[in-house]
Structures are given as C-alpha cells and as structure tokens.
C-alpha cells in the first residue's frame, strides 16, 4: 500500500513500530484516518508518543507478538469473523496438505521434518498434497537447500487439491484451527502480559472494521524484524490480514516502516549477499547451480509470474557483461561468484574476528553503534589489513583504533593495531543526483543543487573510479579468474572537473534496453532470455521508458478531486503500481467489493482491468478465465482470473507456507533466545532454527538466568537517526536530545533504589555501560506466567562522536540471527541493571561518551 493510503483505513494497528516518533510524517496519514473516524490501536511494550495518540493502547511484553497475533487468528477463526468470500477464494485456506504433516501441538513445539542434528527442517511434509510448491521469494529460495531442484512440473498437472467445505482434517483451515487452539485470550494474557479484555477489544475492533465496506491496516518496523522469529511475526500479521480481506484493497494492507532513505532500494537493487538485483537468487555451489541452465531450471517456478525468471536473469547478465555475454558462455554466468553459506553481516563479523576477512569497505554505515555486540565488532576491525570508511563526519567505526572502547579500556593500543584506515569524505543529498526508493516502493529522483565541500565525493564517483582503476590494473591479466572484471561493462559518461559519472546513465541500465540499438525497454514484458535485451533490475523497468524520459523525476500529484493514487508523482515499481496485488480489491467476478472500497475492476465492454491504480494483473485476463489443465499450463496461463497473488505459484495468498520458510509453515510462539521465563506454550524454548554464534566474546544468557533478569529493548528517537553520525553531528537535533538514558519503570526503580537521573550500570556477558536513569511510567512490569517480569528500554542511537553523546546500547547485545533473514535480535534479550557507576578505571575504559 502507498503511505498515503493509510488515511483510507477504518482501523490501524501499529505494532512493532513507534510511528509517531520514528516516522512522524507517515504518521500524519494515521491521524488523518483517525480524523475520518478510524480507530487507532497501538500494541507495544512501551507507552510512546504513538500510544499517546491511539484510541486503544495494548501493552505486551517484548518478544511475545506471535502469541498476541496467534490469539487474534484463533479468535477470528473460532468466532467466524473472517471474510469468507475473500479468504476462501484468494487464500490457500482450503488447500490440502500432505498426510505426513505434524504440528507443533503434537511435537511440543516442533513441526514435522525437523533434523535435530542440523537444526533444520525438511519441508516435504509441508507441501500441498501431491505437489512440490516453489517459493515466491528469492531470498527464501536461496536459503532453503531442501527445496533446490524440486519437481515444480507437478504444479502444472492440476490445481492444488482443495476442500472448499473446509472439513478435510488436513486442509489449511483445520490445521490452523488446531495449531492456534491453545492461543486463547487467557493464554494471550499469560504469555504477553496484556489483559485479555484489552486483547479482545483489539481483535474485535479490527474484525469489525474489515469486510466488504471497511478495511484495516497494520504498520510495523524493526520492532517486528529484530527478533529470532521476525519473519514469522510478520507472517502472523499476513494471516490476520488475509483472513479479514485486508490485502490489495484501499486502506488495507501491512505497511513496513523502514529506517533509511533508500533501504528499500538497497534491498531491491541489493547490496546484500544472497540476491542479484530485484530478487533473483545469488547462485550457490551447494544447490543445483553448476550451469546457467541448471540454475534456471532449479530456481524457476513453473507457474505464476516468476516463470519469467530466465528473461530477467539473462538480461541482467547482458547488462553486466555486455558483448562478453553470449549463449556459448552461458551469458557470463560462470563469472558470478557462488555462495557457500550465510555471508550476511553477522557471519561477516565472525570472519573479521577470525582473520578471514582482509579488507572492508564501510559505506555510510556505522557498525560500532548500529551492530550488536559492539566490542566484538571492534575486535574484528582491529584484525583487518585495511578499512575504508566513507562518511560525511567522523564515525565511531572510522576512529576505533584511537578512541574505541577497547583502546580506551587498555585492552588494545593504537601501536598494536595493524589496520590501515582510510576516511574518505562523502557527498550528501543535495550535492549529488540520483534516485532513492521509499518504504512504499516509490522511486524518487533528487537533484544536485550545491557543491560537495573539499574532497567530498558521491559514492557513485567513488565506486565508478575505483572500478575504472581496477579494470586498468587487471587489463593485461590472462588469468581466467580475472575474466569477470575485464568483461564488466563500465563505460558510463562522466562530466565536470571531478569527472562525476552520470547517475541517469546508470538508471538507464537498471531500466534496461534493447541490445541492438540501445533503446530503452518500456516494460519488463519486453525482456527476452535470448540475449537481445539487457536489464540491471527488471522490477525497475519503466522508470526510464524512453530516452530522456525519467519517470522518477515526475512531480504531478493528484488534485483534491483526483483518485488519490498520485500516479503522476514519481515512479513506483513494478509498472508504477501503488498497491500490490490490487486484483484483490475486486470480487471474484471482477466487481469492486463495495463502492466505498473500490480500486480496480473488470471493464466488460473494453475487456480490460481498469480503475484508480495500475492493475497488478494481466490486463486482459477475464475474471472467469480458468486454466485448461489438460494442456499442462505454465506461467500465468496456470493462474485463473480469480487468482490475485500472481507472484505465488498458485496465485493464492499463502496462509500456510509449503516452501521457503526455515522455521515452519505457520507462526508459532517461541520465547526470545534470552528470556526470563520458560515458554508457557511448548517445551521448545526458542526458535529451534534460530542462528546462534555462541563463542567467547559472544556468550548467550541461558533462559531464566538469575544474573540477567530484565528484558532489554532498544529504540530510536525522533531527533536522532540510527547509528549514523548524521543527526548527532547536526546542531539542532543534538541539542534536542543531548544525552543517552535508560527508561526504568517506577516499580523497578523502587526495587533497585534508583532515582530519576541517577547513574546506573547495565551489564551482560557481552559488556557493560553506564547511563543515567529515566524513571518513567512509559515502561511497566508485566505479569507473565504468574510472575513479574521487568522490562527496560534504551535508545541505541548514541555514541562518542558528534554533539549528542552517550553510551552505546548495542555493547550489551549478542550476535544472533532470525532463522530466515539472519537479522539480529535487539528488542528482547536480557541484561542486569544496578544503581551506581562503573569503577573509575572501567568508566574511562567503557564510557561511550
């Protein structure tokens, strides 16, 4: 959904996000919805600025979200509150799962297929009966070895088996009813600490505001992703929303509120280890990826939109390797580096500490503040041969060798640190041009208005000229291994005294072109798998559909009487669509569910989909089209005119996920990796497939560890942005939030003898810090499984550089990872807290400020 579409919601649940504090301008659409009569609900461990403006505030213990959302799913199913006409048609609710499927309810917290030795699942028993279902998400395909090389042809033989009466014991509906049977309001209260009356009010308010005439939305942020079950928390929300019909419709959806200006763009066009641009899997040596044909065969779904994947892969290879990419050499596919495992940021930190990593580029990121276990990261930086940091002001990361905590503490001295360090000043927005992609896929161009001071350069300049020099250094090589850098196309036009590359030329390559004449492609439908087209990111096709026409520059908002989709403002991928899966905004016959909630519909006269947004569907596919299974349909032919979720192999929203998730087909409550309580639901304490790197320097606290009894959560502030130095070096914002603090409830403060503004010491097995106490009712104790659990919170945005300074909260946290994404847990690990200060020696050593 578009950000502004939040204003069309009848109920908004903000959960895992403090939108008023951290995304204040997006929050204006929430207050607009409220003004129009919507009910606003905030579910959060802390009472924040968002809670203050909500109609209902539901406190929950950090890390208990799936218990809360699972309780919602149970309540919706048990009381028949779901939107039957929507969910029965558009989700896999009626699909029948393999006989061998067994639920955590019968295995004390484990799904069928678990291998205790490898701590991984085999997913055969999660499939639709008789089928092998491909995953729709490259990232998940990549990380699921079990699924590589599956027999996806089974998807073309017949539709997945269904029981539309929902009576079959292994249909998704019945499985979900059993799976969530114990997530009663009483259990929700017992696990989350939220009073059951409040919980019931939340679920009933959302259900009441969903259906033909009404829609509800969720907003979330890293309050959901920064858990060992992060992906499954979001999955639980998608189940709620799909059951209630709040997907692909005006005012309905799930809004991810992301943190950095182009964090969406850097995910789409990924500086990420496991993907090639726009969600194509990075080849992996342990998968069936030895040749291009085998890679494409094992990774390409046979049905649904992703059946087009070979066109996108070959076009990418043509964009990268140009004339050197031919059919004879697999279009340069052998040049692509092959993965051997998880090489995300956390394993990268391990590789630094272990001396495997020799050199590191750090481009506008500040891991000594933003990464967990800061001391461990610092130790890794000291083992590098060289480090290049690019930023606009000095960062904790760049000067770790002189001012780091380990140096200040005497563990290391600059004379012992071999790392060769470069600090290159970076140009900032306004001083360079290009596109950034916002959290709702809006690709917006920004102009160069002023000059970057001194030696400051754009990252485009840096990477282009580094590449140019490297190509020169390798020009005479005859080694096969150097073929990739020699073949790489790198002839971008430059301009001006400093030889700045033209960003628009790079954007044109991302958009794609016909190889023979260099003319831009207007749509990804024009891409081919025969080497005749080149495209750096197929989902961005259409951002520059004609030479000289840059849609990201477009600045024509709708007027007050317009449809409000603002199709003339910038470009939203794919194809300028503002709401994904908007086919679901019409009923199976193609009519809007209601006049009030119309978005796109089938125009029988013109035989096309039309409406207020760009249809996310095959424009001319009739609502009553059904695949002819006698012809073994492939690609989009295998999806009916009533299958809105075109990136899924069967066009249905997957309430139950047969393939792709490492930790189970349904969200299940596990305790955080560190927790003061036993899991009240299962013997399995925490996510059995969570990524752990327990080792000296990164020790974990066992469950119920009396040394570390408090749940610790971190958060951000309106005035200070993330770990970046950007706002701490900005005089106005630094003045507004000058110093670090820890939020402590009055109850815990009384217990520990801490007064407001007293110094306190926070400690974990990873490190300790001192910080002043903010004694406040914003945090509260929870009663969980009959005992009191205290929770404390601290902003993680401080460091020792800039004007606003204070202890680094991430010193306390351990490196851990969500099973699917390797994202660390920052919202629910444990610490100890006491009144007082570090000893003088330690204070000098450890003080972040």
């Amino acid at each position, binding site marked *: 959904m578009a950000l502004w579409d939040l204003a069309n919601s009848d109920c908004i649940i903000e959960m895992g996000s403090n939108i008023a504090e951290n995304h204040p301008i997006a929050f204006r659409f929430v207050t607009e919805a409220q003004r129009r009569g919507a009910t606003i609900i905030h579910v959060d461990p802390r009472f924040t600025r968002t809670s203050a403006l909500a109609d209902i505030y539901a406190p929950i213990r950090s890390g208990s979200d799936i218990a809360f959302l699972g309780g919602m799913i149970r309540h919706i199913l048990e009381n028949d509150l779901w939107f039957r006409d929507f969910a029965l048609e558009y989700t896999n609710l009626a699909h029948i799962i393999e006989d061998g499927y067994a639920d955590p309810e019968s295995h004390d917290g484990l799904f069928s297929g678990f291998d205790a030795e490898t701590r991984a699942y085999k997913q055969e028993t999660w499939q639709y009966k008789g089928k092998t279902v491909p995953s729709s998400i490259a990232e998940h395909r990549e990380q699921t070895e079990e699924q590589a090389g599956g027999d996806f042809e089974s998807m073309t033989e017949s539709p997945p088996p269904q029981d539309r009466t929902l009576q079959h014991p292994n249909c998704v509906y019945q499985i979900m009813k059993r799976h969530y049977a114990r997530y009663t309001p009483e259990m929700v209260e017992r696990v989350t600490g939220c009073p059951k009356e409040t919980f019931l009010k939340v679920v009933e308010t959302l259900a009441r505001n969903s259906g033909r005439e009404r829609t509800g939305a969720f907003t979330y942020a890293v309050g959901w992703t920064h858990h060992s079950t992060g992906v499954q928390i979001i999955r639980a929300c998608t189940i709620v929303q799909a059951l209630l019909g709040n997907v692909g419709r005006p005012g309905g959806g799930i809004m991810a509120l992301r943190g950095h200006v182009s964090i969406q763009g850097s995910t789409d066009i990924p500086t990420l280890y496991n993907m090639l641009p726009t969600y194509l899997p990075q080849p992996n040596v342990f998968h069936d990826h*030895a040749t291009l044909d085998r890679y494409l065969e094992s990774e390409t779904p046979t049905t649904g939109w992703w059946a087009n994947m070979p066109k996108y892969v070959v076009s990418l290879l043509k964009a990268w390797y140009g004339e050197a990419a031919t059919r004879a050499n697999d279009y340069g596919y052998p040049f*692509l580096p092959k993965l051997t495992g998880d090489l995300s940021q956390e394993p990268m930190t391990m590789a630094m500490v272990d001396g495997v990593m020799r050199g590191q580029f750090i481009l506008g990121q500040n891991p000594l503040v933003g990464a967990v276990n800061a001391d461990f990261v610092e130790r890794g930086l000291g083992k590098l041969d060289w480090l290049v940091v690019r930023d606009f002001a000095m960062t904790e990361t760049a000067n770790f060798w002189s001012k780091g905590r380990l140096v200040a503490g005497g563990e290391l001295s600059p004379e012992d640190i071999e790392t060769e360090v470069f*600090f290159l000043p970076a140009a900032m927005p306004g001083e360079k041009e290009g596109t950034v992609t916002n959290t709702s896929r809006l690709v*917006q161009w920004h102009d160069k208005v002023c000059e970057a001071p001194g030696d400051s350069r754009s990252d485009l300049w840096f990477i282009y000229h580094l590449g140019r020099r490297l190509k020169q*250094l390798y020009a005479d090589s005859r080694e096969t291994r150097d073929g990739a850098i020699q073949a790489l196309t790198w002839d971008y036009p430059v301009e001006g005294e400093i030889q700045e590359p033209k*960003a628009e030329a790079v954007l044109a390559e*991302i958009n794609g072109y016909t190889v023979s004449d260099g003319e831009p492609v207007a749509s990804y439908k024009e891409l081919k798998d025969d080497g005749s087209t080149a495209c750096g990111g197929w989902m*961005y096709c259409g951002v520059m559909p004609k030479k000289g026409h840059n849609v990201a520059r477009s600045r024509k*908002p709708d007027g007050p009487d317009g449809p409000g989709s603002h199709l003339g403002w910038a470009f939203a991928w794919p194809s300028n669509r503002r709401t994904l899966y908007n086919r679901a905004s019409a009923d199976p016959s193609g009519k809007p569910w209601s006049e009030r909630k119309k978005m796109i519909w089938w125009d029988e006269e013109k035989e096309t989909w039309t409406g207020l947004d760009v249809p996310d569907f095959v424009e001319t596919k009739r609502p009553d089209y059904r695949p002819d299974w006698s012809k073994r349909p492939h690609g989009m032919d295998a999806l009916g005119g009533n299958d809105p979720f075109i990136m899924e192999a069967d066009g249905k929203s997957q309430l139950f996920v047969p393939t792709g998730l490492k930790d189970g087909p349904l969200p299940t409550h596990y305790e955080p990796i560190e927790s003061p309580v036993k899991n009240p639901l299962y013997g399995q304490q925490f996510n059995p497939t969570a990524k752990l790197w327990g080792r000296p320097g990164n020790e974990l606290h066992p469950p119920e560890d009396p040394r570390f009894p408090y749940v610790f959560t971190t958060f951000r502030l309106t005035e200070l942005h993330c770990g970046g130095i950007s706002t701490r070096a900005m005089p106005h*914002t630094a003045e507004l939030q000058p110093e670090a603090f820890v939020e402590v409830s009055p109850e815990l403060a009384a217990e520990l003898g801490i007064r407001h503004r007293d110094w306190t010491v926070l400690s974990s097995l990873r490190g300790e810090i001192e910080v002043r106490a903010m004694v406040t009712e914003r945090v509260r104790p929870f009663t969980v499984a009959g005992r009191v659990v205290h929770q404390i919170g601290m902003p993680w945005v401080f460091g020792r550089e800039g004007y606003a300074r204070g202890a680094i909260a991430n010193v306390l946290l351990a490196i851990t990872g969500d099973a699917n994404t390797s994202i660390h847990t920052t919202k629910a690990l444990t610490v100890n807290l006491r009144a007082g200060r570090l000893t003088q020696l330690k204070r000098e050593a450890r003080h972040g400020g």
Partner: protein
Amino acid sequence: MARDGHGPEPWRKRGKAVGRIVGKGVGARLSGFLKDWSLPRQLAGEDVQSTAARSSASERLRPRLEQADRVGTSICPFCAVGCSQLIYAKNGRPIHVEGDPRSPVNAGTLCPKGAGTLGMLLSPERVTKVLYRAPRATAWEVKPLDWAMERIAQLTKQARDETFAETLPDGRIINHTVGIGSLGGATMDNEENYLIKKLFGGGLGMLNIENQARI
C-alpha cells in the same frame, strides 16, 4: 540564528532606531515607538498575521530565499518515508532546506531531522579532506584523494588475488573471494547500490556485500 543582519528579535533594533530620533521630547519618541511597534496593535486585537505584524523593521526584512541562485528537489536523507525537500543554494552552497508543498507524501512538512537538514550539510563536524591512518600510527594524516584512490585500488586487488578461490577442493566452481567485505547502502542512491553490487559482486567476485537492510 541571526540572518543577514536581521536578528530574530527585531524589537531590539527598533529601540536603537527610535533612539536616533533626535530633538524631540521623550513623549514624542515614546509615542513614535509605540506606533511603529507591532505588539500594541496586536494586543489591541488587530490580525497578527496581517497589518498588525508590520513595523519599519519588518518592512526591511527580506526572505532569505531571495538570495538563492538555484533551487532543486531533494528527498529527505533520513528515514524511508521519502519526504520531498526543496534545497536553495547560493554560489554552490546551500542556504535553506524546506519541505516541498507539492509532495503527496509530506505536503511541505518535515520532522525535526528533515527540518534540520541544512545543519547536517553545514555541520562544523563535517570532514572534507581525505584522512589516512598508517598501520600502528597514533594519528590521522591528511592525504590527496588521488593517492588514496590508487592505494585502495591496489589493496583491493592484492586482497582479492590472495584470497580468490576458483573451486572447492572437490572441483566445483565457486569463483569467489570472502576476503573482502562491503557494508552499507541503505543511505545511498539506487545507482550507487547498483554499481557496488556490479563491481564488487559481478566484477571482483566478492560475496560479503551487506547493508542496513539486514539489521
């Protein structure tokens, strides 16, 4: 906060200006001052946003934006909401940043971070020279950009050449290096991310390419 000689407290200027009226009695001076001063008129109920806001000082005030020789559209560099900004510059230097009223995202508004963007661009903390720290050195030294670029290129090539692996021990092709990493991208443009992935991944065979999206 004083700008262009016109402080945010124009009444102080008023006092001086009135003080220069020579040769009249205290009463006349006071009456002139009160007549020109906007506050009494506002207290008397006149519209504070109209004529009652005027004084001889306010007549002299000019909008800072008039000095700009260039204005362009930018996107707020902080969170991912994507608010549009108008950046005004004079002689290549930014003089003002404000929300773009046309944007359906922010309709001219900005949060405290976005509103402070000028302070970031002009921060005294900004480093504008290339800094270099040799192994075991105890201080930074300033170096030419060109020297640093060549040194970084050489070090990158050396690290790659020494750590590049073409095959696993069993002969399967991997063509990669895990000896060099790259961190960051979410604060940067799509074009920049594209070239990073293309050069480091597609050209050099690096796999350890990550950004803030993971954390």
